[in-house]
């Protein structure tokens, strides 16, 4: 497994940190063992992480020790962390009722506070890691720089896949708008960067395609649909400068990645999510994309008891994305089966928000609508807009860490509903 002590890599540089300190693989393993201390048997662990060597070392050591890990951001609100600890009985030190193959528990919704976790096995994370290594052609000469949070499945998969080949990770929490980030890219000769659509909007804002980055060879993108003009821009730049640009698709429910566009097809397949990763298979069933592969998670957990559950998905994932396949076997997404949107990299359930708001205002009829990276609209029947806007915005900030300016409250006479009482969202524009 990628987290095991692999003698072959022990003297390779595993990571370079913000402060310039350098760790070999052996030092990283030793640091991790030291950090987690002597094991007195398998137990569930909640680890709050950021992109630093202590987080990485401790995480890998827990995997080696067989401790199932719930990964959360070090910046997560303490009430959310406490809620998670209560829900999953972190104080319970026994692993008696925890499924033996359970390795990792990841949230699907970033910092929205939902306590639903995806259950991932050792096989899941190793299988996805191996297929990523294969389709990206990773070697120990790679030096990715971190651009995504470690607890986010895509950011984590970058770490896994590079550790698997003995590569060097440039670990930083610096953001793209921090000039020190670009100093690190240059100084440590970063070879690759990963990004969600919003990261690419920032790369574009920073005119990445005009920067002098001689060591940067590979760019990867996932975590939502990239605007066609940005896909084209980065694909052309990559093709013209001998770089590789990978557009990919994945979900936490499939460990991380399910499909990718081979870089030489990126320009002819705009809007596509590509072909399945090695070891995976996709098909369309009743317009929905179904994925099969060893990286399909075991299932979800919403309470401690769920950690005892075995593999419920059995290698088959209903992605919830509606789509089709073209004659060359490339897949395309046309919409979501359920109402999820991406807001600046975060996955948000409009239905969940609507439910919570309806509980907050039991006397009001409320509907919530939104699109990727656009303002969320909260429709409330029979109010003066000014009465509620700032209050509702505060709720969004407190409960879901969504900024005020991403939320608007709209007054409406009556929420449109069909005869069975379901909200007709398309009339809310």
């Amino acid at each position: 497994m990628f987290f095991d002590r692999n003698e072959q890599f022990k003297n390779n540089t595993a990571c370079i940190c913000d402060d310039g300190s350098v760790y070999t693989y052996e030092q990283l393993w030793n640091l991790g063992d030291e950090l987690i201390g002597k094991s007195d048997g398998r137990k569930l662990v909640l680890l709050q992480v950021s992109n630093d060597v202590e987080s990485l070392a401790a995480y890998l050591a827990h995997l080696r020790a067989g401790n199932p890990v719930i990964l959360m951001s070090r910046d997560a609100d303490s009430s959310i962390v406490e809620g998670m600890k209560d829900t999953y009985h972190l104080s319970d030190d026994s692993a008696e009722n925890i499924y033996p193959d359970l390795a990792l528990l990841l949230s699907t919704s970033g910092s929205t506070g939902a306590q639903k976790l995806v259950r991932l096995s050792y096989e899941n994370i190793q299988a996805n890691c191996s297929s990523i290594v294969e389709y990206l052609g990773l070697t120990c000469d790679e030096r990715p720089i971190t651009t995504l949070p470690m607890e986010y499945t895509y950011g984590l998969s970058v770490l896994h896949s590079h550790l698997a080949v003995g590569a060097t990770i440039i670990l930083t929490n610096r953001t793209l708008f921090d000039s020190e980030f670009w100093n690190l890219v240059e100084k440590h000769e970063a070879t690759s960067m990963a990004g969600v659509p919003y990261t690419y909007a920032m790369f574009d804002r920073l005119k990445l395609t005009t920067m002098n980055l001689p060591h940067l060879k590979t760019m990867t993108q996932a975590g939502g649909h990239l605007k066609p003009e940005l896909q084209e821009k980065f694909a052309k730049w990559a093709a013209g400068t001998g770089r590789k640009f990978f557009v990919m698709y994945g979900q936490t429910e499939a460990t991380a990645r399910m499909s990718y566009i081979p870089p030489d097809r990126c320009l002819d397949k705009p809007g596509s999510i590509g072909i399945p990763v090695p070891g995976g298979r996709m098909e369309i069933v009743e317009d929905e994309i179904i994925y099969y592969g060893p990286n399909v998670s075991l299932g979800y957990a919403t309470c401690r008891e769920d950690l005892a559950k075995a593999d419920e998905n059995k290698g088959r994932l209903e992605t919830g994305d509606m789509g089709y396949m073209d004659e060359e076997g490339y897949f395309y997404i046309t919409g979501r089966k359920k109402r999820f949107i991406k807001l600046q990299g975060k996955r948000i359930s409009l239905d969940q928000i609507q439910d919570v708001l309806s509980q907050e205002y039991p006397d009001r009829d409320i509907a919530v609508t939104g699109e990727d990276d656009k303002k969320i609209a909260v429709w409330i029947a029979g109010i003066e807009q000014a009465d509620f806007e700032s209050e509702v915005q505060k709720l969004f900030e407190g409960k879901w860490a969504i900024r005020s300016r991403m939320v608007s409250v709209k007054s409406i006479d009556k929420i449109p509903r069909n005869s069975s009482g379901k909200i007709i969202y398309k009339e809310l524009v």
Partner: protein
Amino acid sequence: MTNLEKYNYAFTSNFKVSEEDLPGLKYQEIFEWDSVGHMDLIADIEAAYGIQMDTKDVLDLSSYVKGKDVLAKYGVNFDE
């Protein structure tokens, strides 16, 4: 609006802060001014003065105070 008023408004409207908080305002020191907020701030400043900022300047505009020096390079005069 004067140049200073436009500049101040870019911050107060994006980050929900009051004018008296402005002098001490720095990138990433308040929740609203993260990388997402920075994108919006730069877009509003560019629109307000009809300028296009270089990469280096987008990075250098890391505090309210520093931003004034950055914009001076684009001929924005805050005494007008």
